[in-house]
Structures are given as C-alpha cells and as structure tokens.
C-alpha cells in the first residue's frame, strides 16, 4: 500500500490503541486538528510528544489558561515596549516588526518545516476561544494588522488539541476536528504500559500492584480516581524503596502517590477499616 504519509503507530515509550492510531492517522492524512479528550492522567498531553517523536518533528506547546486569548497564540504587539522606547529613545521605533512577538501558533506557521503544535487544555480558556481560532486553524494563515503582513503556514503543522471537558466546545470547532476519546486502559494495555516504563520490574509485584490499582479505582466514593500517571509514579516509588510484596491493607506503602485528596485517603481507610474489600 502506498501511503502519502508516514503512519503513526505509537512509539516505544507511548503505547496506543488501534482507535487512537486511526484517529491520529486521520488527522495526519486530512490535515485537521486532532481533539483528544479523556480522564486526567490518561496521556493526552504525552500523545503530542509521541507524535512529534514519531514524525521527527519539533513540538511547540501552547498551554491555555483561563486568561488566554486567541490573539496571544498568533502574535502580540508589544505597544508598551514601543512606547517605552519612543520615550527613552532605544532603537528604531518606526519599525513595528520589532515589536511583534509571535505566539506558539504564529511560530508554528512561520516554521520552515512541519512542527507538531499542542494546544493543551483548550477548555480552560473562555467559551469563545476555540471559535476565535477557527479561521486560523482552517486556512492556516493570519494577518498581522499592524504591519499588514500575511503569515501563511509553510508546512501545515500537526495540531493536537486536548480538553478536560470543563466546558463544552463550540460545534463549529468540533466539526473541524478529528475526535478521539481516550478510554481508561484495560488491564492488558495497562500491563504493557507499565512494562514500557518499568521494564525490569518484578512480574509478581506488577501483578499485585495492578490488582490493587484496579480495586482502588473501583472504590465508588473516590473524588479523583488514580490514573495511569499515578500508577507509574507509584511503581517508581515502590521500586526505589525496594518493596517486594504488596497487599491491600491500611498500611499500603506510599498510598499517597495514588490518592491525592485528603477525603479520598479517608475513604480508603474507612472502607478498609470496615473490614470489607473495596469491591463495590
């Protein structure tokens, strides 16, 4: 089969499911942004790194905050600096170009080779934020009003957008994206993920850890259920502390690495003190 592009199949550090591979390949082939949703800690952000690694491209990250505006991603016209310079006479203030600072999206467009652009946690920003980016992501170009210059992407960047579902995203934005919802990994995939991160970990310890991990996730009263990243961290701690045997009881070593909220720890202790296995 002759493909016009290199297919993404995960990397040796990042394991994927067929569904995720299909979504990434669709995004690459159709040159559309890839929107990734899923529980926190399921590797949404790492996916962009993995894609960048697999393509051998540079990764640009734009971490969205509640105050981020779409304009910030394109460019910022540093008027204050220009005013300051005009007042105190540093440099040539007539050249506006000196005062245009490009944001991550602007950088991605200007880059001469294809880059991977990660727009992280797009739902953190204002509701209108994704709509403001529609045109730029669609046409991959924008205009700098101050200098009347057009910036056009030389190589369409691969755009990965992540969302934690704090806000609904606008329909018009969704329609332009390839969508993937990262499921929580099943046991089998999780065992492979663990092996990637801790290749020399004792087989029986891994098994016990996974048992306990999935039992903890089944505790219905937890506010924040432990996820992949917590499991990997926990195993790292266990390994360096030289733990050989694990059993689910109140003295579970380093449980703080798995459960981060005080109430969750209370729930954990209560359900174990009540003498029943946290099955429900």
């Amino acid at each position, binding site marked *: 089969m002759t*493909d016009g592009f290199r297919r993404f199949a995960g990397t040796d550090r990042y394991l994927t499911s*067929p*569904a995720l591979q299909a979504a990434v390949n669709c995004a690459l082939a159709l040159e559309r942004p890839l929107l990734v949703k899923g529980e926190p800690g399921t590797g949404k952000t790492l996916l962009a790194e993995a894609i960048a690694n697999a393509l051998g491209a540079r990764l640009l990250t734009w971490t969205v905050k509640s105050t981020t505006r779409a304009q910030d991603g394109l460019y910022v016209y540093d008027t204050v600096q220009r005013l300051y310079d005009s007042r105190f006479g540093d440099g040539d203030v007539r050249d506006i170009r000196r005062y245009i600072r490009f944001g991550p999206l602007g950088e991605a467009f200007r880059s001469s080779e294809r880059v991977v652009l990660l727009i992280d946690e797009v739902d953190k920003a204002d509701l209108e934020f994704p709509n403001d980016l529609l045109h730029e992501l669609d046409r991959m170009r924008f205009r700098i009003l101050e200098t009347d210059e057009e910036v056009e992407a030389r190589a369409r960047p691969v755009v990965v957008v992540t969302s934690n579902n*704090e*806000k609904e995203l606008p329909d018009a934005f969704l329609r332009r994206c390839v*969508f993937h919802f990262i499921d929580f990994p099943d046991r089998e995939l999780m*065992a*492979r993920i663990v092996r990637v991160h801790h290749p020399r970990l004792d087989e029986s310890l891994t098994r016990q850890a996974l048992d306990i991990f999935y039992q903890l996730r089944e505790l219905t009263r937890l506010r924040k259920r432990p996820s992949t990243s917590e499991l990997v961290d926990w195993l790292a701690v266990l390994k360096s502390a030289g733990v050989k045997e694990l059993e689910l009881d109140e003295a579970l070593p380093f449980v703080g690495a798995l459960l981060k909220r005080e109430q969750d720890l209370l729930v954990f202790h209560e359900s174990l003190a009540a003498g029943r296995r946290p099955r429900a």
Partner: protein
Amino acid sequence: MFVGFLYELRRRKVPVGTQEAVALAQALEAGLHDSSLDGFYEVARALLVHNEAHLDAFDQAFLAHFKGLEDAANALVAELLGWLEQAAAREPTERTPEEEAALAALEPEALRALYTQRMRDQERSRREANGSADAEARARQGTGSLGVAGDAAEGAGGRRGAMKVADARLYRGYRDDRVLDTRSLGVALRKLRAFQREGAFDELDLEGTIDATARNAGELEVILRPPRKPSTRVLLLMDVGGSMRPHAHLVNRLFSAARKATHFRELRTYYFHNCVYGSVYRTEGFGEPVSLAELLSDCGPAWKLVLVGDALMAPYELLLRAGSQGHYRPDGVEGIVWMMQLATHFERSAWLNPEPAASWWSPTIRTLRSVFSMFPLTVEGLGDAVGHLTRGGVRKGPVLAR
C-alpha cells in the same frame, strides 16, 4: 456506500453532515481503513463523532447497519481465493486473460496471509466474547491474555473486533440525554456567566494608556482600570415535597452544582411547594418565609430566575387565592398570578422540569409553560435553559474605565 450509515446516525441524533461525509470519503480514499470493517469502524468513529456523548449512539448505529456484513465479506474473499488458486494451479497457457490479469495484480500468497490473519483476529474476538467469563478469571489471576503464547497476528496490540467493541456499549455512561451528575451540571452552568469591570483600579488599560500618552505629547501616562469580575446573579426557586419527592436526589445535585459554581456573583435559593403564593421559604421545611414583594425588591430584573419543579399539581392549586403571607385569603391573588408576577419582573427566567418532556401534556404543566420557558432537567435541557437565560436582554454593566 456509507451514506446509509450516516442517515442511520442522524436518526440516532448524532449530528453528522456533509462536512463529515466528505472527510470520511477522503480518509477512505487515502486507505486509512486498511479495507477492513474494523479499520472502517475506527476511522468513522474518529471523523463522525465529535463528542463522547455520541459514542454510544454511534456504536448502536454501527451494529444496526453493519451486522452480518463481516461474514458476507469473508465469504466473498474465500470465494476469490478459491478462484485464484484454481487459476494458479492450471498451466499458464490454459488460463483465461482475466485470470492472468488477476494473478498479476494480486499475489495469492499475500492475499491468503491477510485472509488468515483476519480470520484469526475474528476468531479470537469471537472466542473472547464467548469465553468472557474465562477471560475474566484469567484477568483476575493477573496474567491477562498476555500470558497466552502470542501468535503473529497478536502484533496489532490486543485488537478487538469492531462488532464486539460496538456491542459492548462501553460508552453508555457518556450519553448526554441521561440524567445528570453534579459535574455535568456544573459544566452546563458554566455557560451562565458574564463579566463586568468593577472594584479597585489595578489593571493596565493599554488602549487608554496609548491614547492618553499621545494626547500628552508622548509623555508616558499610565491609565488603570478595574479588573473584570463575574456579574451573574442567580435566583433559584425549588419546588419541594409531594410529587417532587422522587426527584429529590436529582434536585439536590443541581443544588450542589449551583453552590459549587464559583462564577456567580450571587446565588440565592428559596423553596416553595407546587406554586408560589405570596411567599417563598428559606429552608426546605418551609421555615423563614420571605414575601414575594421583599424578594422582588431585593433581586432586580437582571437576576436570572431559575425555577425547578415538576409543575404537577391539582389544577385548583394554580387558582388558589393567597395573601402576601402565603396563607389562604378569599380576597388574595391566585397562585398563577403570583407566578406571572415573577415571570414579568425578571428579564430572563427558565423553568427546569425533572419530568420527562413526553409527559408535559398535563394541564398544569401546559399552563405554566405558557408563563415560563420550560426545559427538561437533563444535560441537554440545562444547556438549552442556560442558553435561553443568557440570550439577549443581558444587561451590560457600565464600563468605568477612562
């Protein structure tokens, strides 16, 4: 070929349109689906679904549309293989031109390898489906199917057949017509916000600064302005007791989501039973009454009024006359008139009804619907209600800058 499937999706309320159809066609043209049903499932899901709430409907549509197709496709491939092999077995001189061309284009070896792998994949997924109890037992022991000697086809990474995945309905929990949990309520309520500049002058007003500096002949003059703060005020009136008992759990969730929402400037909650008569109550047990006149003078028309109730009652209760203390008085005002007073006082109001919309034919619901815009108490309904509350009529606060 897949157009019928798109209509199947639309019937199940998955919003797909031309844009999705074109994208899918492009993807298929690029061969992203590897000419298999499983591949098609993954590709179609990535391109046609934009929200995890629709994944379940997608799975169902996929099942309904493609069930039985897999076996038919396999039979076709088997037939083709048989034909090719017969042709290959014969002397080259005895082959027909078509057979010759087909043999040149397709390599029976490669085709057979692909076919056996597909069959093996399918067989495994069927085995898994049948012996799921067995698989579960293995999983509990912790070996998973990883311990099983991996054959070559396993390289795809625990691939499960599309039909099986679709059938498992893993995404049922994400449907948005389901009734809500606190978090999804919180998400829906987030849209109900607006900002206004207020408070201390501690934010740099860039435009103002440039303007003032220019006027000042280039001497830098810094202009400050107050930061943006949330300005939405919400008045929540909840019907409790009687026919609302079965919905108490749901209403509690709405309540806790509203309390947790940090983007409201102010949130007030009062209770009533069936209909508002002159007064509402601060506690669930109808204690600490607040007269409606008092309430309306406290809460200006810009407040967003949200009523929660099933609007189910005996019709006479809407016409019951009551005085401003909320007690029966022959010369008082009818319940429905008190309600209309509420509706006219506030610029924006919405009624959330936990009863399913299909049962809104009851006379009292119909009457109250003519007074308030009514929405079902589901994620979708709450979203619509919030949209209704924010649309138009939103008063903008005075901008204090400059």
